[in-house]
């Protein structure tokens, strides 16, 4: 297991290298003069010069890149946000809990609903309950999540008045208020993502239910739900874990947009705001950080995978 863990850790290094290169290089794509774009039309020549120095635009791009890497690796420094007048690292860390808790809550709801739906569908395949559940999952997959957010706002906040239209309450201050603020954003993220989990659960469940050991379990007289939950359930875990890893990435991306809809002060809103106001160091840092989180999640999923299913450790090179 230790060898496997080390191997996985090492294999993340080139991925992170590509991730950081892309995060850095995206800014090089900006057409025209970045400093004058950022400063706006009213800036004086002096202000422009100062901004160029601050962004390192007076140096060649390779040197700028080396500086960026050096600051990042030695001090965890991603530069200064021009607009917030704050270090990018601090700005991101301040907002990270909102995004992470939103992603986590959405993931939990999606797994719960998805696995449940997949099991219901697989227990009676090709009946109306199966087809109904799977059709719902497919429709969910096809809805734009930000639009669903607006529909939720209209139904639950405007029409029914049950939930606030947006805004954030820290969990530590008021857990119930936090849940009320998070219910709609997490709900619409989860609804659009549970479909994938439901499908994979149903497919692997159908596969497992055909196996000999399930027949044996049934034959020895165990009640149906015990067989489904215990014998089959354990074997469904591995594929579900894999998909959950992928889903986390999609949810992180979805959270970026959903934060915008529900006015949640998370990393997504920071990045979108930075894009609209051309605060490039924040975009770089935000991209790098989000991708790194995703890489870490996949690493954890891979390790969990190996822990749950020992065969993985030997099968994979």
């Amino acid at each position: 297991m230790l060898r496997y863990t080390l191997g996985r850790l090492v294999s993340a290094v080139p991925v992170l290298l590509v991730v950081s290169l892309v995060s850095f290089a995206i800014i090089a794509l900006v057409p025209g003069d970045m400093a004058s774009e950022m400063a706006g039309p009213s800036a004086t020549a002096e202000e422009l010069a100062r901004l160029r120095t601050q962004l390192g635009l007076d140096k060649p791009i390779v040197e700028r890149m080396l500086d960026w890497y050096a600051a990042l690796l030695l001090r965890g420094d991603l530069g200064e946000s021009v607009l917030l007048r704050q270090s990018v690292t601090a700005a991101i860390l301040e907002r990270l809990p909102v995004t992470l808790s939103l992603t986590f809550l959405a993931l939990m709801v999606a797994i719960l609903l998805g696995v449940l739906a997949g099991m219901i569908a697989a227990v009676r395949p090709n009946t109306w309950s199966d087809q109904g559940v799977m059709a719902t999952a497919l429709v969910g997959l096809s809805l734009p999540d930000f639009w669903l957010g607006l529909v939720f706002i209209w139904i639950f906040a405007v029409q029914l008045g049950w939930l606030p239209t947006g805004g954030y309450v820290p969990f530590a201050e008021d857990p119930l208020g936090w849940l009320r603020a998070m219910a709609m954003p997490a709900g619409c993220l989860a609804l659009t993502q549970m479909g994938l989990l439901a499908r994979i659960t149903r497919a692997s469940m159908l596969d497992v239910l055909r196996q000999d050991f399930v027949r044996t379990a049934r034959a020895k007289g165990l009640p149906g739900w015990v067989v489904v939950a215990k014998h089959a359930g354990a074997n469904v875990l591995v594929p579900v874990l894999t998909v959950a890893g992928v889903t986390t990435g999609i949810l992180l991306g979805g959270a970026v947009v959903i934060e915008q809809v529900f006015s949640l002060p998370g990393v997504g809103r920071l990045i979108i705001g930075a894009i609209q106001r051309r605060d490039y160091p924040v975009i770089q840092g935000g991209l790098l950080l989000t991708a790194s989180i995703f890489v870490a999640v996949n690493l954890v999923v891979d390790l969990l995978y190996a822990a749950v299913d020992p065969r993985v450790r030997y099968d994979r090179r």
Partner: protein
Amino acid sequence: MPPSIPASATTDDSAAPQGPALAARLLSHRGVVVGLVLFGLVVLAALTADWISPHDPLRNNFRYRLGAPNDIHWLGTDRFGRDILSRIIHGTRVSLRIGLMVVLATGVLGALIGATAGYFRRLDGPVMRVMDGLMAFPGILLAISLAAALGPSELNAAIALTVAYTPRTARIVRASVLVVRELDYVEAARALGAGHGRILARHILPNSLTPLVVQCTYIFALAVLAEAVLSFIGVGPPPPTPSLGSIIADGRDYILEAPWISLYPGIAIAITVLGLNLLGDGLRDVLDPRMKVEIR
């Protein structure tokens, strides 16, 4: 997407049907039929947009701003009094154009990159690490940032989405190339003295494309969804071009007094994407019976 599948099984024993048999099989698949109808409706609306739109999608009408749906404006009007239905019909054009560009580009690039990585084993490691790195970004976030950096335009949105989704197609092509390259007839071709180029182009690629066709249908769906996000955020095609995502964004501030502005374009997106997803599922069921067990 027309189901014209390039010679999916010319040689080996896989049971994928072709030609008329394939068409018959596809048309007897309920999901494919429903998907074709839904997606066909959207394509038809986009193609005939100039004739079937009841109004000019760009014409303001300040006497009927934020107007509720009525006999003249079936789906209501926005804050400039522009007809929502006409804007949606024209908006499907943008979605489909971008979707098509993304599918073609990711398909071709994915095939090239995937085939290179799968066939020339020495290039596999480096090429796939780059793909892994791109896939480490949440696709939508990478696309938003790229589109923002390149500047808001239809072409740039398509480029951004292509960069975000090409790793998926490349991975899929690579996986099937890895299988096909070990088959006997490839060895036979090699023994007969065929060069790498010929083996790849004539023997391996045509037989590795079935999963790519299925994937491209899903990527079309993803691209339509993602384009809506780009427009919603404001990094898609610039106004006044009506795009489904930007109409939803227009209605965001009027959710209290005019919910129809945001509501209907979302339904149009959902119909398009649902149609494509059903088509993709159907193609997968019919073309590759083995994959059926895996996901569905």
